[in-house]
């Protein structure tokens, strides 16, 4: 991929900042999400909570369904491919998807290699639990990172753990001396240049969102305080009692995450939140897929 294209792809992620990206599984849901203020939608046949419930192998969604969602909304449309499945990625590129999520939420297609994202014209977002994972994905060509969290659980604890680890590791690099950075690159198993960038700038070289387990406006605001530049909300919206209202409240929470008084107002009367599964009740830890 040409440097210019990579730059443009990183730029699109910059436009999404301060926004909420919502999982949708039909054109109707996509329209609800857009109307509520989603800055992009993730088109997938089954949202993570349902993937969890159904079990079995989960794959890229039907291109027809994705195209219907592209036709239904004017905001960017993203879709997921299995880790390492570069043919699914080529298919999504062929239908001019705006962003590909190489996602641990689907069943991995390759247990050793991720997609060589540098070979694509369209941008990729990838999940990461820590700084090493994030920088490895960036080296492979990801132009946006999301912390993994644990999708489809409605439990924010893993998202918090991953974001705290990521931000802590970034902060630790900023105070290291030049010679220590060489060793940090070795420890993180990533190129020195990327480590140097993080140390000098105190941030990843791409936009970073939070994902997995966000179910309430308070959850979204929490992730913004911890360092997210925006949030992905999956099952939390369309598994709740009043998706329209909850979606709109989460959008507002991302913008005004510092205003607790406003958060109190928008958190009122949202109806049932998704039921959720606690960490120790989970059978499959999706976040452990792809390192």
């Amino acid at each position, binding site marked *: 991929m040409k440097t*210019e294209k990579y*730059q*443009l*792809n990183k*730029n*699109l992620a*910059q*436009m*999404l*900042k*301060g*926004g909420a990206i919502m999982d949708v599984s039909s054109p109707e849901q996509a329209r609800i999400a*857009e*109307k*509520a*203020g*989603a*800055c*992009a939608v993730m088109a997938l046949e089954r949202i993570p909570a349902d993937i969890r419930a159904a079990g079995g192998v989960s794959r890229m969604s039907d291109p027809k369904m994705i195209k219907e969602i592209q036709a239904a909304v*004017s*905001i*960017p449309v993203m879709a997921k491919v299995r880790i390492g499945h570069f043919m699914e990625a080529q298919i999504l*590129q062929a239908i*001019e998807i*705006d*962003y590909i999520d190489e996602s641990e939420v689907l069943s991995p297609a390759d247990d050793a290699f991720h997609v060589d994202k540098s070979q694509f*014209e*369209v*941008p990729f977002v990838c999940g990461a639990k820590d700084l090493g994972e994030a920088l490895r994905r960036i080296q492979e060509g990801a132009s946006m990172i999301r912390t993994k969290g644990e999708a489809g659980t409605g439990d924010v604890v893993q998202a918090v753990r991953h974001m705290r680890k990521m931000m802590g590791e970034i902060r630790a690099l900023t105070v290291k001396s030049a010679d220590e950075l060489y060793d940090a690159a070795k420890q993180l198993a990533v190129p020195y240049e990327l480590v140097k960038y993080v140390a000098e700038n105190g941030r990843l070289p791409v936009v970073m969102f939070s994902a997995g387990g966000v179910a309430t406006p308070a959850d979204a605001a929490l992730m913004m305080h911890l360092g997210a530049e925006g949030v992905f909300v999956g099952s939390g919206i369309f598994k709740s009692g009043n998706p329209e209202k909850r979606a*709109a409240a989460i*959008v*507002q929470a*991302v*913008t*005004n995450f510092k*205003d607790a008084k*406003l958060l109190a107002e928008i958190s009122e009367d949202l109806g049932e939140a998704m039921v959720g599964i606690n960490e120790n009740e989970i059978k499959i830890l999706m976040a452990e897929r792809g390192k």
Partner: protein
Amino acid sequence: MRKKIGVLALQGAFIEHIHMLEKLGATPVEIRQKSDFTPALDGIILPGGESTVMGNLLHKTGLFEPLRNALAEGLPALGTCAGLILMAKNAEDSAHKHLCVLGVTVRRHGFGRQINSFSTEGDFAGQGQVPMVFIRGPYITAVEDGVEILATAQDKIVAVRQKNLLGIAFHPELTGDTTVHEFFLKKVLTND
């Protein structure tokens, strides 16, 4: 006297504008809610992002009316990409009309989806060549009388000025080039 410039910070690439203003010696003020929008501002920037999101939040925050009135009454404003769409009087897809203060018609995503995003260079308002980055960018399909065309790209109108309003289809905040922001601070703010 340092100029105080509001930057609409509801969603999108507003930090980039803030950095640009700091670089040029102006004082940026984040506008996230109605109480942030005070008469003390010398101008305002409407950044890139998703116009649907910002339009929605302008209403939810109660910023819509005071902002529209201020722009109509002459508050200098720079709108980039989604910011241009927010200011435009007409959109080819009429569901996407917002503040309706700038006499142009815009075509959202006129240049296509992300795979068609591109960067180029072109003259801006006789100030020389500037880099122009288009991210799912719009362009302007028609202008009313009194709207000055400042730049074109691929034969499409991509920058205009109507007195106090500067509308740009590309993203000057994403490059190191300060020409557009300087033009805003030096010419539009002083009504030159």
